[in-house]
């Protein structure tokens, strides 16, 4: 069953002095209940813009976002977002960061503690509940940000290039961790990335975007059994196909210097 549908989203950012940027052009994506959807695209193609519109943090210029058939008009913990630069509250401990949303909604103290402790345990950070963000490594901060979203029990988890800043080893650990979380929580995930491998490893469906303005150029179902590995032949076939496609897209918009003059 379809959980979320973004229909023909166009977004024009109005800049100063009449300069405006068309970030998204007629973009449609959807996510079935429980699905892992990846959105793959180059830097600047409007991936963050799209997620913020789906979260209800920004309004689309035209088009609309529907959750369970109802149009999304404002942000809600139902569609929780993990931002590209994490945005942990530096003045709150790990526990209080994770508890932030529950506190604002007035969840009773006992239930709150139980839920936060459980999620911290799930992400392997129980022993760091009293630490502050600046005392954590990049991968640990990442897990706090994910825990902070998961504790809300969101129906849709929006993730904006969460692992982009991590080294390869930590990223692999985090990818497996995210899959474990996805399987055990049953949350629908929409995951933005510019890594082809990451999209293939994680997603059921990969939307491929191209830049300037951002459009959806393809939608690929990844029919690989889980757990997946980077090194199988089947994986490599997807990798080659997607790489070829992205290369084509880049070359289509690439203008040699001589021609541009």
């Amino acid at each position, binding site marked *: 069953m379809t959980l979320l549908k973004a229909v023909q989203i166009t977004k024009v950012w109005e800049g100063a002095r009449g300069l405006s940027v068309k970030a998204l052009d007629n973009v449609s994506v959807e996510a079935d209940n429980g699905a892992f959807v990846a959105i793959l695209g180059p830097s600047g193609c409007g991936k963050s813009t799209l997620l913020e519109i789906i979260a209800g943090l920004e309004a689309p210029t035209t088009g609309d976002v529907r959750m369970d058939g109802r149009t999304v008009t404002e942000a809600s913990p139902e*569609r929780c977002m993990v931002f590209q630069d994490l945005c942990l509250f530096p003045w709150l401990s790990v526990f209080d960061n994770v508890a932030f*949303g529950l506190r604002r909604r007035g969840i009773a103290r006992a239930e709150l503690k139980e839920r936060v402790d459980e999620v911290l345990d799930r992400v392997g950070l129980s022993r760091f509940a009293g630490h502050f963000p600046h005392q954590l490594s990049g991968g640990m901060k990442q897990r706090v940000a994910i825990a902070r979203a998961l504790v809300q029990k969101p129906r849709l988890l929006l993730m904006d290039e969460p692992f982009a800043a991590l080294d390869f080893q930590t990223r692999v650990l985090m990818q497996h961790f995210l899959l474990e979380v996805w399987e055990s929580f049953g949350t629908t995930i929409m995951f933005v990335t510019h890594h082809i491998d990451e999209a293939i490893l994680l997603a059921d469906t990969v939307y491929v975007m191209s830049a300037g303005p951002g459009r959806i150029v393809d939608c690929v179902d990844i029919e690989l059994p889980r757990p997946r590995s980077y090194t199988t032949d089947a994986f490599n076939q997807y990798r080659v196909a997607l790489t070829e496609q992205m290369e084509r897209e880049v070359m289509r918009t690439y203008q040699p210097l001589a021609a541009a003059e």
Partner: protein
Amino acid sequence: MSRRLDALASMRTVLAAPRDGVASTASRMLRSIVRVLFPWLVVVLVWEAAARAGYVNVTLFPPPSHFIRYVIENDFRFGIGPQGVTMWASILSSLLRVLVGLALGFVAALATGLLLSTWPAGRNFIMPLLQGLAPIAPIAWIPLGIVLFGVGNKTAIFIVFVGVFFVLTIATTVAVSSVDQKLIKSARTLGASGPQIWTTVVLPAVLPQVFTLLRINFFGAWMAVLAAEMVGLKNGLGAIIIMGREMFDTDLILVGMCLIGACGYAVDSLLLAIQRSVLWWKEPT
């Protein structure tokens, strides 16, 4: 899987070594006290030596041994008869004035700054007024304060208040407009309401910056209190110096100056300590 993550995590804490133990905190405090006092010790020794050797006129410019003995012999009381005050009362009244003024100014400026940030029309109207009032040095408010509130604590508190209020209100609105929008967006996707975002995200995000400015403006406010005590108010550390001048008592003048320096330094250290322990998420500058 999660055990591997745990191992990774515990390795990192060992490296990050969060809060230090009590013992090292104490020894660090001791070391920093020594570091502050040592240069003063050298100055005092040179001064004493110069006085003993006759290079300095002890009546005009008495060394510490001289004016400290004076304080002790006078039983920590200065002045004669009904005009006499104890040293402790003078310190207390100057400190109370400045601390009460700073606290009121800080809280009022934060409240006003946050209010103006949520209310563009009010902000557009009030900002130019604040920008015109902020450059008036605290000292320049003394005559008006004395006219309005007479010679007393109210005047001193008023002077400190205006000395910090306008500047900090402007600083608060600037700090609010530079709060990371992503933090606010995070709070919104976590279900925080509009008012909750103000109290739980914007306020903690701007506090360190505004508090830093409070510390910077404290010196101006401190000087203004002392100046007010010298020109009008009958008590406090500023009044001790004036009493010394009137009685041509250089011991008293120097005692007053030393107390002013020490108290100012103590308040600044107190503010820094507050910043370090309560507002630690942004390194004080």
